């Protein structure tokens, strides 16, 4: 697994995971990531959008335009079944992988 694959996976997990709670527009996903991811997406929030569109293009998300609570038109994303399955697989891989990495780092530090 090369470096960039790893991180593609990371961002994918974060996005897909945010949408588990229900459909959300890009801004809300961004805010959620910002709050929960300790600043990974802090520098350029806009970088989120290419990822959303890529996931949409691969059928993991579906997008549709709808009104927000304040009546504004916004593009909402929701998980497709493929997306849910994918999130499941990625999360599992991530847990295994990050556990291993944490193990290694702890050994190196200890």
């Amino acid at each position, binding site marked *: 697994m090369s470096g960039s694959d790893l991180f593609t996976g990371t961002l994918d997990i974060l996005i897909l995971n945010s949408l588990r709670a229900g459909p959300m527009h890009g801004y809300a996903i961004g805010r959620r990531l910002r709050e929960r991811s300790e600043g990974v997406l802090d520098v350029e929030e806009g970088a989120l959008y290419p990822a959303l569109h890529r996931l949409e293009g691969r059928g993991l998300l579906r997008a549709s335009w709808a009104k927000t609570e304040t009546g504004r038109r*916004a593009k909402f994303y929701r998980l497709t079944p493929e997306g849910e399955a994918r999130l499941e697989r990625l999360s599992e891989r991530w847990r295994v992988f990050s556990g291993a990495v944490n193990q290694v780092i702890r050994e190196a530090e200890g």
Partner: protein
Amino acid sequence: MSFWRGREGYRAEVSEEIAFHLEMRAREFESEGMEREEAWRAALDSFGVPEDIEREVLEMKEHKKNMRPVREIAGSFGQDLRYAARFLVRNRVFTLVAVGTLALGIGATTAIFSLLDAALFREPAVADPQSLVAVYTTSRMGEPRSSTSYPEYLDYRDQTSSLSDLAAVFPLQVSLGDEARGARMLEAVGVTGNFFPILGVEASRGRLLQRSDDMLRAGAPVAVLSHDLWRDHFGSDPAIVGRSIRLNGRAIEVVGVTHERFEGLTLGEGADLWLPMQTGGALRDFPENMWDSRGSRWIARLVGRLSPGAPPDRARSELLALSERLIQEDPTRGTRSITLDPLGSYLLPLGAETSLPRFVWLLMGVVGATLLLACANLANLLLARASARRSEIGIRIAIGAGRGRIVRQLLVESLLLAGSGGVVGLLVALGLLRALGAYELPGGLPISALGGTLDGRMLAAAAVLSAATALLCGLIPALQSTRREVAQGLHRGGGAELRHGGGRLRRALVAVQVSLCFVLLAGSGLFIHSLRSALDADLGFEPHGVIVANFSLGVLGYEPSEVLRFTEELRSRTLAQPGVSAAALANVVPFGPGGFMGTFATVDGYQPGPDEEMRVDQVFTTPGYFESLGIEILAGRDFAPADAEGSSYVAIVSRSMAELYWPGGEALGRTIRPPAAPGAESPGIQVVGIVEDAHWRAIEEDATNFVFLPLAQYPGRFAVMTMAVRTAGDVGALLPTLRGEAQGLDPELSFTLLTTLDEQVGDRLMPQRVGSVLLSGFAALALLLAAVGIVGVVSYTIREQRRAIGVRMALGAGRDRIVRQVVRSMLSPIVIGLSAGLVGTLLLDDAVETFLYGVSPGDPVTYGAIAAGLAFVALLATLVPAREAARVDPMRAMRAE
């Protein structure tokens, strides 16, 4: 599905999506209490460049339509360039500092390199300069590159096989008579008839000199004009060939004009005309034995063409062997060794052969160090910036941009920076060359005479330099920031350590900057110190308010008795001018171009030691000499008009001579004797005065034995006469008056030098002056760059560690402790830099020593002061951002991530 709605529809959708995001974000900021406008700006800042994001999304869509790979690369390069340009415009301060740094580094290097190139590497306009050699002989006294006698020249020319031919050259000044404009002094070169054939130079008009021109001593004298003289003085007269001109009062026929590009062989000493040696000798009234005596060494240089295939070394050893054989045959021959310089470039002025290249290389070293410093600074800036952009880069990688793409993007930015730096640097170089034109290099060579210009090769050099800088400074940070992102992104949040790999590299760069800065500061310190000592030195004379004028009467055909009459007349006319308090004529003044005449003396009542050389330098003067120059008369009297031919011989001696030979202080009234002619008794010369010691040839020279003799008692022709005039009035107004008075006495007389003694002394300090000015400039620049570099590193390190600092402060660490910690982290690079700088400076000492006066390299006071000052600036540069860091509110710092 939106995918089918077409590109424009899709683009509109993406735009709307982004607009929605921005508006929401702005509202969020507004709800935190920001003004509307400020909130929008903050929203944009945190979003990035909307156009870029939009483009990226659209690209992702179109990616499926399979672009051609080549078009993709070319297209994305254009994108990279646009993106880079936008980034640089957005980060104005960074861009200004980076471009400015590069421009100064590249500009200074290019300017000095073009000087170096002009001084040392430019070829004279002759055929195949690579196979030409300049030959000098070493005299019996051991002076290298001394002159050669005519019979010796003939031996070398006729008995050497590794040289296909050999020409002899000697420079002389001649006065060109012009009824309309008065006399004009010209630089002439006396050459043997084979000179032009050896060089392979063509005539642009008429013919050049040929062998038959210097065969006969009584034949019609001829001359060849330089193209410049023909154009400037004779108005490009088409009928010049065959015309007769007056040189030193004699008619000489012009036979031709040289090719436009031929400016002689010596750098900066453009010759006005060439004469056959015999003609030149006649114009200078050479005694007959000059052509036959091996003791008369008057040929300045020999120029030869190597035989095909003969290396310079073989020619040298052949000449040396020949010289040794000839010495055995005739022990009176003076030559002791041979110097042979391959003539791949212009010859340097006599006396500047070693000092000039050293000086120019020294300058090159200085600017090289500055460029290096600029590069270190730029690398630091790029590193720091790359680290500040780490999360942005991380995201770009995360959304699928390959590492290569990111590296390329960063490199394009560097190239753009370097390109701008290079262009601005060229302007800097042009400005610097213009500003330096007023200065002279060692050997009295004005920088403007080098004609250092930025030609195509300089442009190419600047371009290569910029590109190399960009690659060097851009590649490392680019690779590092992309690699580290992979390794660290995972562990982010836990990375509260004060050390990073990048931090180490950056601190190493700070050490490099500090050490280079130290070297430059130390160098400029030494030069300034040296200049000050030289300016403060007690010269023994008072140069202020003294005009010196050199002229030559011998070349005008004056008999010795006429010389005396002329000088007396000129002196009395000068003394009659308002403001003139003293005037005198002599064969030499301090720091003047004339040579000293040394002789050996015996002193009544003084018994020399077994190996003691009773050598004294003699100066022939009129009354008023010491008053004119401001040399104090310690005892006795000045010369008087009564000290003339026929009256008893008198002399004035220097203090050190009086103290050496008459230590009791009873010099006045004692007798010295010059060496007697064979069979005659030497006349005794009575000492009538003692004057203070003075520096005559150089500021750093020790006092030597001087004896002053009245000109009137030794009628003769001197190669150069000097008039020294002390005035209380306006020097500038008096200069033309003096010229007018002299030409009123003889319209063909012209001053070869008309200047002030101040200037004549000042010219000797040119290397120190140029050194001080340049080095101080570069040192100031270096200090600024180093300070900017340190501030940059510290602020970026702090930015990276805001969270860690916040955590510490939240845990109770005091502000002082944070400041101390930050400062301590910079201490070791500063100390390492200072030590390395000191070592480097000590290694470079040899190179500067030649140019220093009154200060020894390795001067602990200078170095200590510089180290302290530099450490102070460096710590200040650390302290300012460190204190800023400590002012951070711990809670905000933690939340900020």
